[in-house]
């Protein structure tokens, strides 16, 4: 799992590249939390267009990050999920926490 990120006009864009499963979850958590310590952003957009695979472990990772950012009043949004990621997000109610944007 590689994570690209950049801040543009107070929005932190995070692009998850590769496979998000139980094996990659641990390092993904650490890397995302590290990125979230950057200054100068007030919302986060997680782009899944380069995510090749995700199972329900991914939801655990995302909800964990949502909780940490919520403590700092920073909203999180999801964009470009695959059809399968979308089905998992809908059945877990993830979009109630981090809405999908286009």
């Amino acid at each position, binding site marked *: 799992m590689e994570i690209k990120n950049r801040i543009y006009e107070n929005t932190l864009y995070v692009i998850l590249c590769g496979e998000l499963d*139980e094996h990659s979850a641990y390092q993904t958590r650490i890397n995302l939390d590290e990125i979230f310590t950057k200054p100068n952003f007030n919302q986060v957009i997680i782009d899944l267009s380069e995510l090749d695979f995700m199972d329900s472990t991914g939801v655990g990772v995302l909800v964990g990050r949502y909780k940490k950012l919520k403590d700092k009043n920073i909203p999180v949004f999801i964009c470009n999920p695959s059809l*399968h990621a979308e089905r998992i997000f809908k059945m*877990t109610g993830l979009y109630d926490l981090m809405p999908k944007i286009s």
Partner: protein
Amino acid sequence: MKMINEMEITFKAISINESFSRSCIAAFCVQANPSLDEITDIKTAVSEAVTNAVVHAYPLGDGFITIKVKLYSNGVVIDVCDNGVGIEDFNKAREPFYTTKPNEERSGMGFTVMESFMDSITLHKNGKNGLIVRMEKLFKIEDQSAVGL
């Protein structure tokens, strides 16, 4: 329905094998010509079952996971087997959001995802303690002209 092929693999119950095993099973199923969508369904469901075995089956140390696949011309039956601690209450384990490890950021949605992506999920005891997760999926025939219908 006619069985066209059969396979079995056994590997250590460690997380790096989650990716190996789901890719391996998905690749094996390709010969029955499922759609790309169905391949991803299988990949995701296998990943959930293998992850469950890696995370929960062997708290005391190393164990192995065996996956047995029966491939038919129009579907597949996949058994994900372990010899671990087993599940006390099958019904409880299948409830959405149920997890025995709430402090580890786990979604508790593994079985729900398997049920959603496959046609049937059943749980069986494997010998004394272990668990078999049996998943079945029928493939839809997408291009009916290809089979002369």
